[in-house]
């Protein structure tokens, strides 16, 4: 890889050992991915700075040490990028999981220390998977270094920003050095559509768009799918499509013809390739139904747990769920959780929606998600409107899962049972 004089000085440790390590990560990773150079980056969404997850098991002394030493390393150099850098959901303090006592106090102490370190480094620890809802909204063509598979797809495909799939080390390094290796979706040729999905099924709810993503991610693998035919979509649907396609696949971006900024036409999405030569899949009513049944492990009947907010809910979605509850109580046997960014939880509180939700017996939680932090509950019956969450909760907590539309999830929470 060709490096500038300044980049070489960083790599050789001329600006300190941690910047040297960060630069080594970027250069070796870039070389592995075929990058020829490093380019400036101003917008980073990083991960990896969080207290150890409580709930699943009691964190060991070693886990506490690890969390702190990582935060110290990742915050060791002030960030050079101008735009807000946010860290991803990964902390479990929002979970009122019984009496945590001294454990909760220790975790709060670590969290405060991490917030302090991050603030000094210039990292805004927003702890959300949807930073684009709360202050970090990239613009078209903006070079970014984002973690969080769903958000990566969202900003590439819906906003037309440019990021490759980043992990903790590369994003931290990008924030501190102000550089990213240029490959994949940062380049025109890495953004072209590579397979076609003709969508015939009517997509009526955000969960239906999630089904499309869950179907297409498996077909796409690491490639960029092009969706033809499903029409336009709202924010909730865009989040479901983005998160599901990056669950079954390692997708970096999709093209939704007419919506994706650089795919106003099919021709644009394909960058001049002949559509007749691309792999073609059909997503009709049968595929829609079959995708729901692939993740369905529950029969109609009692449920234990309803999770909404993967990816984190917008304020509008929080309000929609509150309205759907309409003052009714959640069934005593059911736990209904809504997950949202911390800032939107505060907004919901100020507007009175938090109080309404609490009166119904629902929980509005922030900073994490059950797949990250819930305790193992083998056999627990979970209903959610998110294909991503359902997919991961199976292994994460031993859940038996099903996916249904948001309103159907709310009804099930009130009734205590699910009628698909």
């Amino acid at each position, binding site marked *: 890889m060709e490096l500038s004089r300044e980049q070489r000085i960083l790599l050789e440790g001329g600006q300190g050992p941690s910047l040297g390590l960060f630069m080594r*990560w970027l250069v*070796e*990773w870039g070389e*592995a*991915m075929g990058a020829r150079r490093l380019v400036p980056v101003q917008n980073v969404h990083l*991960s*990896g700075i969080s207290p150890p997850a409580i709930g699943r098991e009691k964190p060991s002394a070693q886990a506490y040490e*690890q969390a702190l030493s990582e935060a110290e390393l990742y915050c060791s150099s002030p960030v050079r990028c101008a735009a807000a850098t946010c860290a991803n959901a990964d902390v479990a303090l929002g979970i009122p999981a019984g009496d945590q006592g001294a454990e909760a106090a220790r975790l709060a102490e670590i969290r405060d220390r991490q917030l302090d370190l991050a603030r000094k480094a210039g990292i805004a620890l927003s702890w959300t998977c949807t930073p684009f809802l709360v202050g970090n909204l990239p613009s078209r063509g903006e070079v970014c270094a984002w*973690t*969080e*598979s769903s958000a*990566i797809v969202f900003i590439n495909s819906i906003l037309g920003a440019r990021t*490759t*799939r*980043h*992990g*903790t*080390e*590369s994003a931290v390094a990008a924030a501190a050095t102000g550089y990213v290796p240029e*490959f*994949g979706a940062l380049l025109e040729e890495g953004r072209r559509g590579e397979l076609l999905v003709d969508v015939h099924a009517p997509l009526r709810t955000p969960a239906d768009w999630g089904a499309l993503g869950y179907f297409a*991610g498996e077909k796409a*693998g*690491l490639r960029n799918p092009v969706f033809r035919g499903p029409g336009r979509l709202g924010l909730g649907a865009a989040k479901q499509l983005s998160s599901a396609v*990056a*669950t*079954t*696949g*390692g997708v970096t971006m999709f093209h939704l013809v007419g919506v994706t900024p650089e795919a106003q036409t099919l021709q644009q999405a394909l960058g001049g390739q002949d559509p007749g030569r691309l792999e073609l899949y059909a997503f009709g009513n049968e595929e829609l139904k079959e995708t729901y049944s692939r993740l369905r492990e529950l029969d109609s009947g009692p449920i234990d747990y309803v999770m909404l907010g993967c990816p984190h809910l917008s304020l509008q979605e929080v309000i929609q769920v509150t309205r759907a509850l309409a003052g009714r109580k959640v069934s005593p046997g059911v736990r209904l959780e809504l997950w949202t960014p911390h800032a939107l939880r505060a907004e919901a509180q100020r507007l009175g929606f938090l109080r309404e939700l609490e009166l119904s017996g629902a929980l509005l939680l922030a900073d994490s998600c059950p*797949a990250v932090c819930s305790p193992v509950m083998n056999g627990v019956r979970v209903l959610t409107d998110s294909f991503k969450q359902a*997919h*991961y909760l*199976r*292994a*994460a907590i031993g859940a038996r899962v099903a996916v249904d539309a948001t309103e159907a999830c709310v009804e099930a929470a009130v009734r205590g049972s699910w009628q698909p």
Partner: protein
Amino acid sequence: MSVVKLRCRKVVGGHGEGPAVVGRTRLSFWGGFDAGRGVITERGSPLEGARVAGTVLVFISSKGSSEASRVMAAAKRNGQAPAAIINTEVDAMVALACVASGIPMVTDLEEDPFRRIRPGSRVTVQADEGYVLVEDG
């Protein structure tokens, strides 16, 4: 016993050897792998239940979560990481995990690794030299 030498392309340098764990599938290390026990946990995965510590792990590519590198770093600390990785497609997430945790990674073997490498075969990955040795016996 026969030893076959296959040319390949280095993704991340280094040398690693161990028994092969082989699955023609994509893996999500966050949410699909227990870094404490070194076991693949994704329900329905062809590799569900496989132990990967000290093995040469052969699969198509990563998928899903962008936390692969953190999970792999945890596996490495716990002594549960694979000795080397062979992928047929290169996702930035496994490449980053291998860079950060010092695990050799190769791709583009001159023969299809899913046909050529049997589970349990002894495999040596020489990433910098660009070859893989497969012992059958």
